[in-house]
C-alpha cells in the first residue's frame, strides 16, 4: 500500500465508531498535491466531512487527524500533528496542533497520513493502530483515569515505541475547554478537542508502525538536509535554546530555579531544540513530585496568575494537565466566576468552596469540580457562554475580553499581558477557530523587534516583494499613522503557518527561523517528487487558508465574530506596534479590512471574492 509519491505514507484510515467499521483507503495523489498535506489536507477533509451546522459534541462531528509529508523524515522538527473538528467552545471548524512527540512519525510508519474518526461508540473505547492491524478496543478500565495514568497503562500494553493521544476526566465529561495530550506532554486542542473525543467515548488513540518513510529524490535530499543540519549546529544560540527552551523568551522564574527541578529535556522526533520537559520538585511539601510538560514555561504559568511559590505553580499545572484542562481558559473562567461571586451575582451557597485564584488548594478543588462536573462546576465546565446564559445580563458587565466565545490569552486583562498590537495579537481576532496566537507569528512576535529586521524575515516567510513594500511603506514616514500594516502582514503569518503545518514542521519561532518559504518549496518537491515552485506553494497555501475561511463562513462564523472586544480599546488596551499610542476601534477595523483585502476577500464582509475562488480553483466550494 505504498504511494507513488514520496514522503506520504499513502493511506487514510476511516473509522466509524457507531458501526464499529474500519476502512483503509488510498490517499488521492492529486488531492495531496492540491492541498499540500498535513494541516492542509485535514482542512480539506473537514470541509468535505463536516456537515454545516453540525453540533460539536454530537456523533455527527468527525475528527480528522493528520501529519504532513515531511513527518517521519529527519528534517528539523518535522513531527507536527494536526487535528481538525468542530470545536465546542467557539463553535467553529478549527485546527488543533501539537508537536507530535512520537505520534506523528509512528502514524506515518503505520502507513497512514490521516485518520478520520466518525460516529460515537456506545461504550468507552480506544483506537489501536499497529501498522495495518487496526482495532477498536474496550476502554472501560481506562475511563475515569487521568491523562498520565492512561498514557502509562497504554504504553505498557503495546510493544514500544508507541505514540498515544489521550484525554483525562475533563474530556470524558465534555468540559468545553478540555484538551487531548500527545504522549502525555504535547497539548492538542484549545477550544475543546478533548470534549469532542469524550463525546465519542473515545479515550485514546495508540499507534505504532515500522513501514518506513521514503523520499523521492534521495541525492538532493541528502544535500539539503546536510546543509540544514550544519546551519543549526552552528547557530550561536542553539545551546541556550536547548538549555532553557521557552523560558528564554518568558523568564517566569530565575534560570537557577528551573535548573534545580529540570530532570530531562524532551524533544519531539527530529527536533534540535526540545522544548518539552520532565521536572522533579526537589524540596518542600511536594518534594519528589514529578511532571512532564509541553514546556517548563507552561508549568510556571500560574505564577502569572498570582501564585507565589513556583513549586505550587508546577503542581497546579500538572493537576490541570492530568485532568486534561486548558490552563488559560480555566484561569479565565475561574477569575470570572470569582468576580461574579464577589459581586453577589453567583450566590455564595452555590460557590460552596471559596475561589482563590492564587491558591493551589482552591484551584485543585475547582479543577476537580469542573472536570467531574460537580456543583457549580457543572456550569463552569460549559464555558463563558453558559455562565453568561445562566447568570443573566448582570454577569455581562464583568466578563473578560471574549472572541468567538473564548478568552484571548494574550493582551489586556489576559495571562500574557502583551500590549503592542502585532500579528499574534490581531490573529487572536482573525483566526477562524477562535483566539489563538499560534498561527499569527511574524517578527512582531514578543513585540518590539526593530523594524529594520522585518524585510529579511518577511521575505523568508514567503511574502512577495510588492507586498513587503506595501506592508512597510509607512515605516520611514514619521507622520504615517499606519507605519506597519499589521492587517496585511497577518495574511502572510497565516500563510507561513499553513506552509509549515501542511509540510509537518513545527511553527515555533525557534525552529521556523531555520526554514524559509523557498526552502519549503524545495523540500516539498524533493521529498514528494511533486513539482513545486515557490509560486506553486504560495497558491496552494492560499487555497488551504481560503477553504478554512469558507468552512467557517458556511458555519455562519464570519465578520460579525471578528470585532475587537471592548477591553482591547482605550488607554488600558492594546497599543500601536510602532507609535505605541492606544489603538482606536476604527484603527483596528481598518486592520481587519486590510487583512481581508490582502487575501482577496471582500474588504467589508471577509467573504472570498469570485475572482479569488477562481484563481485558487475553489469555485465549486
Amino acid at each position, binding site marked *: 500500500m505504498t504511494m507513488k509519491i514520496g514522503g506520504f505514507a499513502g493511506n487514510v484510515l476511516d473509522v466509524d465508531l457507531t458501526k464499529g467499521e474500519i476502512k483503509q483507503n488510498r490517499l488521492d495523489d492529486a488531492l495531496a498535491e492540491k492541498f499540500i498535506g498535513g494541516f492542509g489536507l485535514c482542512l480539506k477533509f473537514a470541509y468535505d466531512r463536516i456537515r454545516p451546522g453540525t453540533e460539536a459534541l454530537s456523533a455527527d462531528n468527525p475528527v480528522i487527524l493528520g501529519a504532513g509529508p515531511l513527518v517521519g523524515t*529527519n528534517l528539523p522538527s518535522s513531527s507536527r500533528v494536526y487535528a481538525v473538528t468542530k470545536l465546542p467552545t467557539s463553535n467553529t471548524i478549527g485546527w488543533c496542533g501539537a508537536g507530535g512527540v512520537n505520534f506523528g512519525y509512528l502514524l506515518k510508519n503505520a502507513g497512514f497520513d490521516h485518520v478520520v474518526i466518525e460516529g460515537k461508540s456506545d461504550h468507552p473505547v480506544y483506537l489501536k493502530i499497529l501498522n495495518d492491524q487496526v482495532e477498536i478496543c474496550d476502554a472501560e478500565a481506562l475511563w475515569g483515569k487521568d491523562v498520565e495514568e492512561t498514557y502509562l497503562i497504554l504504553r505498557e500494553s503495546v510493544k514500544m515505541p508507541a505514540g498515544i493521544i489521550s484525554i483525562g476526566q475533563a474530556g470524558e465529561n465534555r468540559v468545553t475547554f478540555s484538551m487531548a495530550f500527545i504522549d502525555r506532554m504535547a497539548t492538542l486542542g484549545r477550544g475543546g478537542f478533548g470534549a469532542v473525543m469524550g463525546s465519542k467515548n473515545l479515550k485514546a488513540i495508540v499507534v505504532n*508502525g515500522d513501514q518506513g518513510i521514503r523520499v523521492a529524490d534521495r541525492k538532493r535530499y541528502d544535500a539539503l538536509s546536510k546543509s540544514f543540519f550544519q546551519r543549526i*549546529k552552528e547557530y550561536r544560540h542553539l545551546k541556550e535554546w*536547548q538549555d532553557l527552551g521557552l523560558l528564554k523568551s518568558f523568564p517566569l522564574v530565575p534560570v537557577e530555579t528551573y535548573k534545580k527541578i529540570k530532570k530531562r529535556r524532551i*524533544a519531539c522526533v527530529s527536533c*534540535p531544540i526540545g522544548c518539552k520537559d520532565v521536572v522533579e520538585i526537589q524540596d518542600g511539601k511536594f518534594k519528589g513530585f514529578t511532571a512532564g510538560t509541553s514546556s517548563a514555561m507552561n508549568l510556571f504559568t500560574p505564577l502569572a496568575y498570582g501564585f507565589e511559590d513556583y513549586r505550587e505553580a508546577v503542581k497546579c499545572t500538572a493537576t490541570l494537565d492530568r485532568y486534561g484542562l486548558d490552563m488559560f481558559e480555566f484561569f479565565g473562567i475561574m477569575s470570572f466566576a470569582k468576580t461574579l461571586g464577589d459581586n453577589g451575582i453567583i450566590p455564595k451557597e452555590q460557590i460552596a468552596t471559596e475561589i482563590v485564584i492564587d491558591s493551589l488548594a482552591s484551584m485543585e478543588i475547582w479543577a476537580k469540580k469542573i472536570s467531574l462536573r460537580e456543583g457549580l462546576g457543572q456550569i463552569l465546565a460549559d464555558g463563558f457562554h453558559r455562565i453568561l446564559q445562566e447568570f443573566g445580563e448582570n454577569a455581562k458587565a464583568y466578563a473578560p475580553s471574549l472572541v468567538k466565545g473564548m478568552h484571548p490569552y494574550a493582551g489586556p486583562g489576559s495571562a500574557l499581558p502583551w500590549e503592542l498590537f502585532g500579528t499574534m495579537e490581531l490573529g487572536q481576532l482573525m483566526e477562524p477557530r477562535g483566539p489563538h496566537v499560534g498561527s499569527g507569528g511574524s517578527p512582531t512576535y514578543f513585540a518590539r523587534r526593530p523594524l529594520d529586521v522585518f524585510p529579511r524575515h518577511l521575505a523568508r516567510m514567503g511574502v512577495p516583494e510588492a507586498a513587503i513594500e506595501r506592508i512597510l511603506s509607512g515605516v520611514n514616514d514619521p507622520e504615517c499613522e499606519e507605519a506597519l500594516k499589521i492587517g496585511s502582514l497577518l495574511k502572510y503569518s497565516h500563510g507561513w503557518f499553513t506552509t509549515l503545518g501542511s509540510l509537518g514542521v513545527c511553527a515555533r519561532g525557534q525552529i521556523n527561523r531555520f526554514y524559509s518559504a523557498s526552502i519549503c518549496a524545495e523540500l516539498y518537491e524533493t521529498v514528494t517528487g511533486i513539482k513545486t515552485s515557490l509560486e506553486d506553494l504560495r497558491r496552494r497555501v492560499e487555497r488551504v487558508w481560503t477553504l478554512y475561511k469558507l468552512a467557517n463562513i458556511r458555519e455562519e462564523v464570519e465578520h460579525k465574530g471578528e470585532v475587537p472586544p471592548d477591553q482591547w480599546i482605550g488607554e488600558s488596551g492594546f497599543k500601536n506596534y510602532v507609535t505605541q499610542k492606544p489603538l482606536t476601534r476604527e484603527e483596528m477595523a481598518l486592520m481587519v479590512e486590510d487583512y481581508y483585502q490582502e487575501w482577496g476577500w471582500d474588504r467589508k464582509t471577509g467573504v472570498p471574492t469570485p475572482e479569488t475562488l477562481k484563481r485558487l480553483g475553489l469555485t465549486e466550494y
Partner: protein
Amino acid sequence: MAKYEIQANTENCTGCLRCQLGCSNLYTKAFNPCVAYIRVNVSGADCSITFTEDCTECGVCADHCFYGALQKEPKESSE
C-alpha cells in the same frame, strides 16, 4: 568504511531519535527508526541507548545528534 567508538551520554539525550532516523535511512534507504541499529528509549526522566548486533560502528548516529548525547572517536586500525 571507517569504524568508530561511539560514546553515549544518556544525560544529554532528549529522545529526538535523529540517530535512529539517520541510521535507518543509511542502511534501508527509508526513515524507519524501528529497524535502526541504535535504540534509544526515553521514559520520563530515564534514558537508555543501546546498539544492536548489526551495528557497523559507522558513526552516522553520532553525526545526526544535536545534543551531544552521541560522540564518535576513530577506532585504531587492527591491521
